[in-house]
């Protein structure tokens, strides 16, 4: 483990960069302020001393390696290197002028890492940065690190897959050395290498050296170095050198070569006269790997066909040696694999040339013979065919056919030959495995829950014991014990069962016997059964688990493989007492939650933002109250981020006014028995994640019906106190709401699943080893699929583009986002109101109006962010303002990061250019993306460029900030599906014009409009007036804020005074 790579005293931002040069990986730190008052003295190479030294670079501390220095060519202005883009993001720097930069060669102090340590050092750096949950990180990772981490992982991948070659090297004097090199030119690897190298950031190839900034040249040297270091280390650990120690390298050049591969020195002892010969032989040998017949437009192929059936197929036919498989030859067009010329035809047609479907084939007979010869080098059996003057095919017995399929086929394919095997080969359907049979009662979710639902809680769930037994099956065909025994006796790898050929690996039969013996069936917990059936590893069970079959409610749970959405459940209607109508998909969501709760499963509703998760949950509460009739239903504990408390209160008021809602937060929140009693009598108790931890004991005094986590990603860090506190609350029914695609964020997924269904995914550590690491580090698709299958029954996620959802959605969804004031905002707000009220009392006319107007603007600014009113941000300093000081900013960041994770784009409108600047640096810092900001001062040319960039929708610039009356400019911004009004114009017409930028011709998706309102402030009051349209006629509103200035002092006081219950005690 590596310590923080910077000095303790240094508190400024740090970005770590990596470059490969001088035959080693170099790490260096870029700092936000000059690294030293004194110019850094770089020792060593005198040749570089003429170069200027990077003023913002320093050597990382705490990383094992050697002090060094390198020269880089970096974008600079006035010979000063400009900050990297990660650094600009962290420091909120304006990058407008950066296009004027030119490359300047500059010296940088570095730490040079030993090749053998590179993997560990890089992974530690990445882990450190990844696990820095609270974004208080002291350093971030530059693109060079990311790149070389990927390259290092590629090296591990190739080593694990045996894709390295022993290489021989020769220097200018003819001296020989040896090394282990990764083999890159096979198709699968080549496509990976291609992706890697074409992604190389310019920064990572900025070193001024003999590679001439060439990505291929640098990367292959890097790969060769780390691969050799790792392989060599293994050879040394295993004492492989001992095997050649007694042999004489002078007698046998193989021994000489091995000396260079197995020892810690690369030298290949050889005498001058031999070297050319050795080099030539090794070159020719290795070049065999590249000899894949690629120069030809035609490739040689073999087709293996099953023996022709004689007589009726027996149930299990024992293949004897008289049964012969035929392997026939053909030539195939490389460009169009459909075009095939069989050997039997080739011997009948013209010698010189054939034309098939416009493709010419010269000397087909010659090519066939030559390629057959080449193939026979890899498969000796083909030499039989060479005895024939006109070879067409060879015949194999079953044993040989099996050996060919298992061992030879992959090799021939890699060498560029075509191999056609029978379709059942390598299909799941042809493999011996175990199937799990689970029996459970029929699903009857509409039936009443017996007994008091609150007292004992659900009796089912993942801990339920279910009856099960195992069956041996081949694909979908279950074998009887008798059949299986027959199979086991045959001891043949390829057998025919019921007329179908299947592969029976001898080890599989053995394992199956053992497996059935050890697993006679009986009862086990459902969770355990699901883990076995969905995510077991053949390496652990000894036998592939090929499927699960269930009856009853378990079958409903397992549903299809596309997750909760596919479960066919009776759809419940919108509860009558619910003040509104559920859209069809919302009714399905509510029904699903009812089902999951009925059978005791924790459920995660993960619909896209804007699809109405709140409404579905509220409807569920109404549904159960209708079901319960007169009986009192226990309270639901709802844990939410501070920023959305207001929204919940407002939505409950609107849709479920009959529910008693209690908000538990603030300094004067009720405590002790009063809390217990009040909560027990309420329906919905809202509290925050912070209080769930602080008031944990108090919360546990209530007998909860269920607990719901809103924005459940808040517990993504399993070790955080809040997450632990939440998991510790005693309640059996658990629901999580989240809009982020949880399947893609693994620590979050584990945390939420462990909250919902404790233990199902195993311990955090096991989960990390089994799933997180392979998936996150190596994008292991296999593991990803397993994990998805395991969690999908518990997650219902609909996205806006789902066909079933789209048809239910209107073109535009408007919603108000109710935000809270932070204590700092509240204090400023109250002070401002007081001062103004005092002042206006003493003034009149224009002066009074001016006072009111000035105060109103200040109040709006305070609602936006205290820093705006206090003018803390001077764009010149590019300071990043803390978002936690403003309720609106917190909410905005939550919503924006959610929509970005869904791949959406957004427009954010603010009236104030200054607020635009604050938001721009804040968002780019938090999101790590460059933010487009269009304001009145943006020149026309740049304006168009920004709009084009945004409309291109590459995902790199998903946010466009605007601070202008958008109605005046002909902007078409249909790439946005979200529109935020960060502050209000108090003029619906202006707002609608702005909204229409995204919601206009060309827009094919639903547009969501979010209007930000701070509760308890003038923003809420004015919103009420606009809504009521009674006190405020359109024409009055049309005049902006003028009307406000004419209000009497009492009215003003009434309008502006802060309402007490609306202040957040913390965010």
């Amino acid at each position, binding site marked *: 483990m590596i310590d923080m790579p910077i000095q303790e005293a240094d508190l400024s931002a740090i970005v770590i960069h990596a470059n490969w040069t001088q*035959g080693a990986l170099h790490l260096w730190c870029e700092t936000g302020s000059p690294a030293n008052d004194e110019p850094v003295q770089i020792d060593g190479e005198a040749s570089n001393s003429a170069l200027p030294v990077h003023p913002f670079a320093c050597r990382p501390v705490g990383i094992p390696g050697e002090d060094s220095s390198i020269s880089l060519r970096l974008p600079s202005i006035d010979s000063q290197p400009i900050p*990297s883009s*990660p650094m600009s993001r962290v420091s909120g720097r304006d990058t407008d002028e950066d296009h004027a930069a*030119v490359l300047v060669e500059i010296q940088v102090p570095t730490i040079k890492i030993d090749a053998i340590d590179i993997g560990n050092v890089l992974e530690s750096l990445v882990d450190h940065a990844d696990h820095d949950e609270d974004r208080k990180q002291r350093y971030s990772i530059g693109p060079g690190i990311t790149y070389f981490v990927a390259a290092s992982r*590629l090296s*591990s*991948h190739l*080593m*694990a*897959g*045996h894709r390295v070659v*022993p*290489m*021989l090297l*020769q*220097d*200018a004097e003819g*001296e020989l050395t040896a*090394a282990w*090199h990764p*083999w890159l030119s096979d198709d699968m690897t*080549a496509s*990976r*290498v291609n*992706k*890697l*190298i*074409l992604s190389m*950031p*310019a920064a990572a*190839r*900025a070193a001024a050296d*003999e*590679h*001439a*900034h*060439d*990505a*291929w040249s640098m990367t292959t040297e890097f790969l060769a170095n780390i691969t050799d270091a*790792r392989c060599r280390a293994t050879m040394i650990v295993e004492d*492989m050198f001992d*095997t050649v120690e007694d042999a004489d390298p002078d007698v*046998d050049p193989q*021994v000489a070569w*091995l000396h260079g591969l197995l020892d810690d020195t690369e030298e290949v002892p050889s005498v001058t006269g031999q070297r050319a010969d050795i080099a*030539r*032989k*090794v070159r020719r*040998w*290795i070049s*065999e790997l590249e000899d894949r017949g690629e120069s030809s437009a035609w490739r040689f192929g073999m087709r293996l066909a099953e023996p022709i059936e004689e007589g009726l197929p027996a149930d299990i036919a024992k293949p004897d040696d008289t049964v012969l498989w035929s392997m026939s030859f053909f030539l195939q067009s490389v460009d169009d694999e459909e075009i095939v010329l069989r050997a039997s035809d080739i011997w009948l047609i013209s010698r010189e040339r054939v034309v098939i479907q416009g493709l010419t084939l010269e000397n087909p007979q010659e090519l066939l013979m030559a390629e057959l010869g080449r193939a026979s080098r*890899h498969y000796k059996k083909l030499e039989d065919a060479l005895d024939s003057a006109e070879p067409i095919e060879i015949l194999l017995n079953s044993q040989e056919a099996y050996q060919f399929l298992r*061992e030879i086929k992959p*090799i021939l394919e*890699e060498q560029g030959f075509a191999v056609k095997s029978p379709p059942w080969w390598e299909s799941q359907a042809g493999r011996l495995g175990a199937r799990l049979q689970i029996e459970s009662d029929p699903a009857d979710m509409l039936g009443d829950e017996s007994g008091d639902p609150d007292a004992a809680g659900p009796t089912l769930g993942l801990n339920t014991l279910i009856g099960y037994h195992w069956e041996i099956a081949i694909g979908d065909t279950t074998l009887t014990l008798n059949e299986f025994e027959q199979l086991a006796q045959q001891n043949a790898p390829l057998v025919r069962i019921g007329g179908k050929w299947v592969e029976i690996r001898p080890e599989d039969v053995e394992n199956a016997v053992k497996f059935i013996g050890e697993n006679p069936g009986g009862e086990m917990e459902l969770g355990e059964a699901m883990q076995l059936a969905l995510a077991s590893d053949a390496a652990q069970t000894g036998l592939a688990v090929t499927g699960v079959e269930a009856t009853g409610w378990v079958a409903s749970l397992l549903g299809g493989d596309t997750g909760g959405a596919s479960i066919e459940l009776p759809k419940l209607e919108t509860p009558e007492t619910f003040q509104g109508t559920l859209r069809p998909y919302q009714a399905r969501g509510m029904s699903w939650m009812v089902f999951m709760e009925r059978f005791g499963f924790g459920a995660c509703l993960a619909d896209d933002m804007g699809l109405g998760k709140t409404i579905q949950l509220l409807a569920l509460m109404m549904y159960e109250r209708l079901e319960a009739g007169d009986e009192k239903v226990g309270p639901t504990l709802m844990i939410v981020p501070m920023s959305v408390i207001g929204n919940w209160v407002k939505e409950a008021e609107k849709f479920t006014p009959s529910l008693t809602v209690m908000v538990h937060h603030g300094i004067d929140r009720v405590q002790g028995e009063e809390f217990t009693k009040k909560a027990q009598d309420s329906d919905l108790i809202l509290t925050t994640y912070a209080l769930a931890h602080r008031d944990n004991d108090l919360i546990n005094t209530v007998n909860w019906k269920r607990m719901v986590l809103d924005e459940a990603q808040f517990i993504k860090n399993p070790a955080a106190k809040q997450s632990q506190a939440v998991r510790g609350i005693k309640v059996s029914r658990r629901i999580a709401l989240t809009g982020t695609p949880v399947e893609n964020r693994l620590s979050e997924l584990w945390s939420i699943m462990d909250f919902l269904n404790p233990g199902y995914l195993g311990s955090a550590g096991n989960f*990390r*080893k089994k799933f997180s690491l392979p998936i996150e580090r*190596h*994008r292991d698709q*296999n593991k990803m699929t397993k994990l998805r299958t395991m969690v999908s029954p518990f997650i219902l996620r609909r996205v806006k583009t789902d066909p079933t959802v789209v048809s239910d959605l209107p073109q535009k969804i408007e919603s108000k986002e109710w935000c809270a004031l932070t204590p700092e905002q509240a204090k400023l707000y109250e002070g401002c109101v007081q001062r103004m009220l005092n002042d206006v009392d003493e003034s009149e006319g224009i002066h009074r109006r001016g006072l009111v107007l000035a105060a109103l603007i200040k109040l709006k600014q305070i609602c936006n962010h205290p820093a705006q009113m206090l003018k803390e941000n001077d764009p010149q300093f590019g300071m990043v303002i803390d978002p936690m000081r403003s309720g609106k900013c917190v909410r905005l960041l939550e919503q924006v990061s959610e929509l970005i994770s869904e791949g959406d784009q957004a427009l954010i409108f603010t009236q104030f250019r200054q607020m635009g600047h604050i938001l721009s640096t804040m968002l780019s810092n938090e999101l790590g993306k460059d933010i487009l900001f269009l304001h009145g001062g943006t020149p026309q040319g740049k304006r168009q460029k920004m709009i084009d960039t945004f409309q291109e929708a590459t995902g790199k610039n998903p946010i466009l900030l605007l601070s202008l009356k958008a109605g005046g400019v002909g902007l078409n911004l249909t790439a946005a599906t979200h529109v935020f009004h960060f502050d209000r114009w108090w003029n619906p017409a202006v707002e609608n014009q702005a909204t229409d930028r995204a919601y206009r011709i060309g827009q094919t998706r639903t547009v969501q409009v979010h209007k930000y309102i701070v509760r308890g402030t003038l923003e809420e009051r004015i919103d009420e007036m606009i809504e009521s349209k009674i006190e405020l006629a359109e024409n009055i509103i049309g005049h902006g804020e003028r009307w406000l200035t004419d209000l009497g002092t009492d009215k003003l006081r009434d309008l502006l005074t802060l309402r007490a219950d609306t202040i957040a005690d913390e965010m």
Partner: protein
Amino acid sequence: MSDQKNNPSDSSEPKAKKLKIDPLAALEKAAKASPKEMAKKASSTTKKTTKKRTKKSAEKVPPPPPPREGRVVNVISTPTISASVPTAPKRIKPQYASFRSSRKSLVNPRRVRGGVKLKLKAGETPASWITQRLLRVAETGADNIIYTDGIEYARLGQTKRLTIEDTLCEGIIQGRSDKPYTTTLGLDEFCAESQEKIIAAMADQVRYAAKLLSGELPSNIEDVFAPLGLKLFPAEPEDFKPVCSCPDWKVDEPWCKHTVCLTALLAEKLGDDPMIIFGLRAMPGQELIDGLRQKRAAGVQGPGPSPVLHQHVPGVSDISSPPLEDSINSFWDIGDGLAELDTPIAPPAVNCVLLRRLGPSPFVDGQFPLIGLMATCYQLIGEAAMQAEEELGESD
């Protein structure tokens, strides 16, 4: 030079005749003449040319003079046949879209059979940074519609003949009228003094020499030229001197369909064989390489050990990265491919598959069981990689 190999129809021409200008002679001449004289000469030549052009533009510009007797002309009359153009890296986005698709070109010239065609398809980004850069130059210089039409001409194969003669690129391009137009592209020549400096600068640096010697153009080649106030490849419209005999051509608006068409073809040609540029700058590439080879053999140290077999990965190993300068606006950006790169750590489906493909040891007389030992090594290496991954997971 690869002109030869790209030009089957021309293969009868003896290779030795191909290069008329003898750079060694030119160098000798340069050495004899005093630098001052050379500079004077160079500048006066430039002036003269400019004057001549201006004068010409007053009236109808006649087509450029036909090739003089005795000069060797490299005629490229048929389109070259070559492997498919590898797709360029995604992240390299030219500042201007190379082919605007906003308007469908409506050109309707008299069609030409067997003309020189642009291989690049619509919407494709050229693989070579050189092609990208030259197309960008034409796009910057020409009016939007003219550019689109010119590219369409190039793609249709309207160019009856394309010749690169010493320092001049000439095309005979068929438009709508009966007779084809004669179009030329000229570049400023490097004077002898500059040439000397360039060779000296390159020879000093191993990286240039090594690349050039292997017949490849180093991607940061412009670094040698920039300090001398020179550019090897045109970067601005002004760096070209396009002339055309068509009625649309004007001195102050020299970019017509035909000049765009010719530039596109030249751009692609230079992308395939960048060494041609030296000829266009009056500095033939082979001589440059010879000069470098001599200098290097004399002084510069050779590179370290090099593998007996260099591996190939189509699409990357055979293409130089774009110059660092061209990435200045995306200097810190990682390409999209990295997010898709999967590197699962798993044992192979077939053990030691490479070893099996390699077959028996290359040393037939050797007594030592090399392949058997290698198989053990592969097992150990594979297990070590799996083990290291496990430990990495546990250490956190």
